[in-house]
């Protein structure tokens, strides 16, 4: 491919187009609304997008492999509510509690993967059942009250700004680099695309389909857990329902970024601007100053509209 052709490919790619939409919305909103374009505000938007971006990282893996993870919202809540419970004063850094929680959420993801890979339960049913199970468990353990956290590392993650950049955004950058590497530069990534495009052909080509499937749901559990830790840090306290907004947001970010909901095609490079676009839309709706009911209706309609504009794909044979 000539350099010129390569540049044309990038310019026409979905990640780049999504990025263009984000830039356009930001410019128009900055001109139309006082304070929207301020550095602090935009930085805040990206910080919020980091949470969606983390949840959507695992979701991208799952969707590329032809599945879907409907338990991410519940897993975010498990992390945010569970972390205060496992934090102990014996560890002054707070790292051990984070590791325990991440191990827990990864294990939840692995169970999803086991159900999908070996019990052959449809991913939608498996993860929805898991979400319902976790919600019940959370209500029993945490009840209706919010739990506050005294964990230095979690606090740092949610509030610190080394060199003016929020720690959460730094975390997102690191995870994004890792995800892009695994997805596009390793055999594991290639296997995921193969499973999503044609699971039968992948199996007959020697791809270990069950093991790969279990791994990607594990990854989804891990990144949703990370998002839960981050949202707890930003929020200061966790409560049942804290993760709820991230289910639709994570799937919408994946699809807005150009990943095929049918599996086999896509990239996390699109999910990143997709996440920022979603947060931007939410912020704009808040500016409109409508009641929560209307905000929700507006948000849902806008996502649907955006997907109709950009996310439709040609039927496959």
């Amino acid at each position, binding site marked *: *491919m000539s350099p010129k052709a390569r540049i044309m490919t990038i310019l026409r790619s979905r990640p780049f187009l999504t990025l263009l939409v984000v830039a356009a919305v930001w410019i128009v909103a900055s001109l139309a609304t006082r304070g929207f374009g301020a550095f602090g505000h935009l930085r805040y938007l990206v910080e919020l997008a980091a949470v969606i971006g983390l949840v959507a990282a695992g979701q991208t893996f799952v969707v590329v492999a032809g599945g879907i993870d409907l338990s991410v919202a519940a897993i975010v809540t498990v992390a945010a509510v569970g972390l205060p419970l496992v934090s102990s004063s014996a560890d002054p850094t707070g790292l051990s509690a984070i590791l325990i929680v991440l191990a827990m959420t990864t294990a939840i993801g692995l169970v999803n993967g086991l159900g999908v890979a070996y019990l052959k339960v449809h991913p939608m049913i498996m993860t929805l059942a898991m979400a319902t199970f976790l919600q019940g468990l959370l209500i029993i353990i945490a009840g209706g009250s919010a739990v506050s956290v005294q964990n230095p590392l979690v606090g740092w993650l949610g509030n610190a700004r080394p060199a003016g950049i929020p720690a959460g955004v730094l975390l997102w950058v690191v995870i994004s680099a890792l995800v892009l*590497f*695994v997805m596009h*530069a*390793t*055999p*594991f990534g*290639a*296997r995921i*695309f*193969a499973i999503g*495009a*044609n699971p*039968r*052909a*992948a*199996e*007959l*080509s*020697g*791809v*270990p389909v069950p093991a790969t499937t279990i791994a990607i749901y594990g990854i989804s559990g891990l990144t949703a857990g990370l998002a839960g830790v981050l949202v707890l840090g930003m929020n200061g306290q966790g409560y049942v329902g804290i993760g709820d907004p991230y289910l639709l947001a994570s799937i919408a970010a994946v699809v807005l970024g150009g990943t095929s909901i049918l599996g*086999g*095609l896509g990239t996390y490079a699109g999910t990143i601007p997709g996440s920022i676009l979603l947060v931007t839309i939410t912020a704009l709706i808040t500016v409109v100053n409508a009641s929560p009911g209307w905000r929700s209706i507006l948000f849902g309609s806008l996502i649907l509209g955006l997907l109709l504009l950009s996310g439709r794909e040609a039927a*496959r*044979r």
Partner: protein
Amino acid sequence: MVNTAPLLAARGVSKAFFGNPVLRNVSIALLPGRVHALLGENGAGKSTLINMLSGALRPDGGTIEVDGKAVSHMTPPEARQAGIAVVQQELSLTANLSIAENIGLGAYPRRFGLVDYSSLASQAREACALVGLDEPLSTPVGELSLGRRQMVEIAKALYRKPRVLILDEPTSSLSATETRILTDLLERLRSQGTAILYISHRLNEVMALCQHVTVLKDGSVTADRPLEGTDAAGLVRLMVGRDPGDLFPKWQASPSRTTAASVRNFSAGLVRDVDLDIKTGEVLGIGGLVGQGQEDLLLGLYGAIPAKAVSSEVNAYQALPGGVPKANALGLAYVPADRKREGLHLIHPIITNLMLPAFARLPALKPRNRGSERDLARKLAAQLGIKGDLNRPAQALSGGNQQKVALAKWMPHDPLVLLLNDPTRGVDVETKREIYIMLRQLAKDGKAVVLMSSDTPELVHLCDRVAVVREGRIAAMLEHDALSEENIVAAAVGADKPKVAA
């Protein structure tokens, strides 16, 4: 007959995909009461031409004429209304619907706005009778064998009482009896004045059935003339542009044979208690009627379906592989018959398809080297004659080239045992020849080639031994000296006094 006006014609049509010209200035005229053969290698542009004649594609240049009148922008429904029916190579049936529902789909008889099932049944029964389908009409199509489904597909076209009938390789999955029924039927339709376009790679069928032939090569017409006075060799020459030579390479016994895999009392799927020895240096044929368990035999050996055996040895490993990754590690490779559904990732680039077995066995998180992947893929493509940009999706390739990709992806891994499921189905003569030469060469290089085939001549001329499977058991193991089409067919139908050996 010469003076009758064509019912359907293409005049100087051209078509290009992604800038690659597929058809250049092609003309064809379908006359009533004539069976017109369309020949050409895979990728010559036959399917594209059919798609334009049936309204599925629009020509870039030239016109399509129905009854002598040029129609611009013909859509598939308009084509159907004009009495044009196509029997596709890729079956277009819905597995969950019954035979009758499939036949009537899209043209159900209505009564008070509802589907009139009784009149559907009577009309569908009529169409089924024409093609000799005697299964109950309420049978879901998913329960039928591939050959029977093909007959349903043909019945579906007949149900619409077409004036122009286009058949794209209708016999590739039919048994000899079914082929004969179809031939008689086409003969009858022809005498009633139907215009028929017949596409097949089986030249003897074409010679027997057709009156006129159009040959396509690389998107251009190289011949358009009556079949009278031509012979099969002449047709092949027109298709490939050179002398055909022998289709099959000369058979030679391989000097060294050692056992690569052997199973005793092996069962998998339909297969029951089979004893089989697979040896290096030979091509072992697996024959029989369609759906007797041949595929399960291969899949079971490959670990893709559950299998058991009293004793087994695969490449010095004292058990069945039990799973595909393990089978690959033991040196087994499998090439499925259904390229589109089982062999390839159509939406992915050719290069990714070629590299997939490598991705499957490399350490999961070892960084990929795109440069060496490209080099390897280029080498494979050159070796097997796969043309064009390797970054195109695999669905852009013709059937023969797709088959080459499905074979080529295993080559870097140097498999000891190659399990091939009907590798030449729907493949043009020239590619067939290339594949045959390759299989003999592989055997000569000390590989064990297991060739399951529905093409009996292939088994006779290419194989060292042929196992004929009937009702899940090996009904006969024919050694090379005993190989003949008669012996294989006799063993397959069980009407044999077979020369059983081994």
